[in-house]
């Protein structure tokens, strides 16, 4: 600890101006985060109550604006202020994780940044603080504007890292039982509107879990002498209303097992199942799902502020753990720590996005010790347990995706059923009229005249309904077609990245050889090379033509279905089209399709399945010496079965289902985007077939079993 000169009433800090600048001006980027940080520090100081006062901060007020953050925490001693509060790098929070007993709160404040947040708010601060049983309040005045001018003086070529700064302090009388800290910030840098305070309120309302009763409590109040709506207003989480569906899972009391959510197709509800406690420990999860109408209703309640429905937040012992204070006006710019929106083609694929759910996941420091804050406290430490926790959350969010799809299908089938029924009703109406005409009014032309328009109307109604049914069917087909095109484009994107590299390499070779001709021809010394280059250019061009043909097949607007032989297609694809790729990668390919099978679908989409399986295998085979890909198939009584195997690194049994999820990948380092197997599964599902990871044919290795039914009706 550096020596500090203690004058009669001034406290001298040796101050690192550059750190001051860095932390104060760059890390705390906005005012709301600044206040949020300071309130978190109150929590760390064992406060049970904190009040944020805004006095005279409205835009038109020029006299004495002030922000006061006042808590009843443990307070600071003279030594604390001298040695810790302002001295960067001696943060007591770095060595300890918990606040003093009996509270033992897990520290939530950033690493010594909170104090610098004061600077964001105003240029002068008085710290008024006192520990229990001290008989006086200690008041220290810090003038940031003075630091600023000092630091400017120092921005000379010879940089001196430390500046000596004198700060005035004095003592005032107090009741020995009082304790706590108040930061009285003046020369406030910017005015605060009611809207600004509302944003702060919203952020602070997320600090504590809406469900977990904090004991001892931590109550936050906002108070303003200008905005009547903030008259000592307690900060409480928003009540969650108007949601479409709510589900909560925790620990089953009788068995001690972890409850998980599953969608039950029969009842159309999300049900609870039990499973072993996961590696990350027991958790409680609540998810509120909002469909479009519910979202609109909920957002209307908050003046169309659409950042209220904001995904899953994790609370540890009732205090927000991640994402930490994250003030962001634009919901699209929010960080997606849990990776929920990474699956961003949400609505197209019945995935639920963070804009459709509010979720709270409760963990505790005792039960979930492996979920550890990362150093920057903006996320958790990346370890196997946290990865599993993320997967767990996404899996549970996906349950709501199933629910969403079910609800959508239900509406669709209801409409179809109603249309069909209307059609039948009209037909039976027509038949009844005909019967009446025949049985009762055979010889009474005057009645026939009355019935005739009815008959005509019924006929035209019937044709309108038939037309509607056809339109409805067409529309459904169109939806499927669009989804298919979309999937095909997504796989193309992946493919294009690889192929563009190959094309550039190829073009590079051709260009160099052409350049060689340009510069050196004729030259007898290089005659042999000229001949060789001519042949090589020819070969390279052929390769390029093949590659571009393949690309062009995507460009064709033809997405019609056709009959083709699976055996022929697989042999062409794996033995011819991919021959060069396999040769380059050193992969030996076996195709053994015993029986032929004619299928009616879009050829390109069917090829996508194998293109993705192949690219998956190539990644898995990177570290294998004798690389093998094998595709075998046969017919049995009801199905055509295909096995696709490689002897690569293989896939964990635990991941057997997970790998088919959109954006789920274990090969992101090798450029895996987590699209491939998703596309494979969707394409096969579209053929009413199934794909599963089964016992591997090679050890190590992976084998996918694809089963396609005989019924070619898609």
């Amino acid at each position: 600890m550096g020596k500090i000169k203690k004058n009669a009433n001034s406290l001298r800090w040796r101050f690192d101006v550059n750190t001051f600048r860095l932390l104060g001006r760059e890390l705390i980027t906005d005012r709301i985060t600044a206040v949020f940080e300071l309130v978190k520090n109150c929590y760390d100081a064992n406060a049970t109550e904190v009040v944020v006062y805004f006095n005279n901060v409205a835009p038109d007020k020029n006299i004495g604006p002030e922000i006061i953050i006042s808590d009843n925490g443990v307070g600071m001693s003279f030594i604390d202020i001298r040695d810790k509060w302002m001295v960067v790098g001696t943060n007591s929070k770095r060595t300890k994780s918990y606040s003093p007993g009996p509270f033992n709160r897990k520290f939530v404040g950033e690493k010594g940044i909170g104090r610098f947040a004061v600077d964001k708010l105003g240029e002068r601060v008085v710290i008024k603080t006192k520990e229990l049983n001290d008989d006086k309040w200690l008041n220290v005045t810090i003038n940031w504007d003075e630091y600023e001018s000092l630091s400017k003086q120092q921005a000379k070529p010879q940089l001196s890292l430390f500046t000596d700064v004198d700060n005035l302090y004095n003592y005032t009388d107090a009741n020995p039982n009082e304790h706590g800290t108040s930061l009285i910030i003046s020369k406030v840098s910017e005015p605060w509107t009611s809207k600004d305070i509302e944003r702060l309120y919203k952020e602070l309302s997320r600090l504590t879990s809406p469900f977990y009763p904090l004991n001892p409590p931590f109550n936050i109040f906002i108070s303003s002498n200008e905005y009547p709506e903030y008259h000592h207003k307690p900060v409480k989480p928003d009540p969650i209303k108007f949601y479409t569906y709510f589900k909560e899972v925790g620990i089953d009391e009788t068995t001690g097992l972890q409850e998980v959510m599953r969608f039950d197709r029969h009842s159309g509800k999300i049900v609870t199942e039990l499973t072993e406690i996961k590696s990350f420990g027991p958790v409680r999860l609540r998810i509120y799902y909002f469909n479009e109408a519910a979202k609109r209703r909920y957002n209307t309640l908050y003046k169309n502020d659409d950042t209220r429905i904001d995904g899953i937040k994790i609370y540890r012992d009732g205090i927000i753990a991640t994402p930490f204070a994250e003030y962001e006006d634009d919901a699209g710019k929010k960080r997606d720590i849990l990776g929920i929106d990474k699956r961003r083609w949400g609505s197209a694929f019945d995935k639920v996005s963070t804009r459709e759910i509010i979720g709270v996941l409760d963990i505790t420091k005792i039960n979930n010790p492996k979920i550890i804050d990362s150093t920057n406290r903006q996320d958790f430490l990346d370890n196997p347990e946290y990865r599993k926790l993320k997967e767990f959350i996404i899996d549970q969010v996906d349950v709501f995706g199933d629910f969403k799809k079910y609800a959508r299908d239900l509406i669709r089938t209801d409409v179809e059923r109603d249309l069909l029924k209307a059609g039948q009703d009209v037909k039976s109406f027509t038949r009844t009229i005909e019967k009446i005409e025949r049985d009762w009014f055979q010889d009474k032309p005057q009645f026939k005249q009355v019935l005739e328009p009815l008959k005509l109307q019924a006929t035209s109604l019937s044709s309108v309904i038939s037309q509607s049914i056809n339109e409805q069917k067409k529309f459904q087909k169109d939806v499927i077609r669009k989804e298919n095109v979309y999937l095909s484009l997504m796989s193309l994107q992946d493919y294009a990245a690889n192929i563009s590299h190959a094309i550039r390499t190829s073009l590079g070779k051709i260009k160099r050889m052409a350049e060689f001709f340009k510069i050196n021809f004729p030259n007898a010394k290089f005659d042999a090379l000229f001949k060789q280059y001519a042949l090589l250019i020819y070969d390279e061009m052929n390769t390029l033509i093949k590659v571009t043909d393949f690309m062009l097949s995507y460009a064709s607007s033809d997405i019609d279905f056709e009959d083709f032989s699976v055996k022929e297609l697989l042999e062409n694809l794996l033995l011819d089209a991919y021959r060069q790729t396999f040769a380059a990668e050193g992969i030996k390919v076996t195709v053994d399709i015993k029986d032929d099978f004619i299928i009616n679908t879009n050829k390109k989409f069917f090829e996508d399945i194998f293109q993705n399986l192949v690219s998956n295998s190539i990644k898995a085979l990177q570290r294998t010496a004798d690389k093998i890909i094998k595709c075998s198939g046969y017919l049995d009584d009801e199905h055509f079965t295909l096995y696709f195997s490689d002897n690569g690194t293989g896939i964990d049994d635990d991941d057997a289902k997970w790998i088919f999820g959109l954006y789920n990948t274990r090969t992101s380092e090798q450029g895996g985007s987590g699209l491939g197997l998703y596309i494979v599964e969707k394409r096969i599902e579209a053929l009413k077939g199934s794909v599963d990871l089964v016992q591997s044919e090679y050890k190590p290795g992976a084998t996918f079993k694809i089963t396609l039914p005989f019924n070619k009706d898609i």
Partner: protein
Amino acid sequence: MPAPIKIVVIHDGLIPMVDPLLVMLGENFGKENVIHFENSNEGLDYVLGNLNQKMIVLLDRNFSKGEKTGIQVFEEIRKTSSLVYVILITADEFAKIKNEDLILLINHDAFAIQSVAADYTKIIALAENAAHKLNARVDSVLEDWIVRHKEEDRSRPLMKAKDGRIYSMNDILESIRQQSDIGKDFERNLVNLAIEIFSRQKPLA
């Protein structure tokens, strides 16, 4: 005549033996001095095993088949030596190179980055530029001077440092190559001495 420079090409997008780039590098630097590796691991092994030679590495960025990436090879080389000039030749768009890779390349003095689709004459010009710099470097000039001496002379004590340590020609070369304090000092003094000698010369009439 300076000692020959080895041009080590670690690239899987070139036609082995006959690629015009290899042929023309051979024309410029001598066929026997151009060594081509398609496998990045083998290329790296060669570089690390021959650090006593003057070397320029033309390095690809992407290698498949579970080999080290160009960036990894570069990092590995830099862990041991900062005296090998590395020119990155990539088929990717530069915009696709990750920022942290670019920062690493700049901070560790990659000599240049060039597209594989660029004229090979440009790539050869870069290699020649690197060769010129390599030959003009103090350690290279010194090496050229040292190799003109007999082996027994090279290990004989030549100078005494302030701390009393005795240095032979080989020791001096070694300390410059490793950029140790004494090596840096020696380098600086040598350049100063050269300038002084120049300045003592009488201007030509």
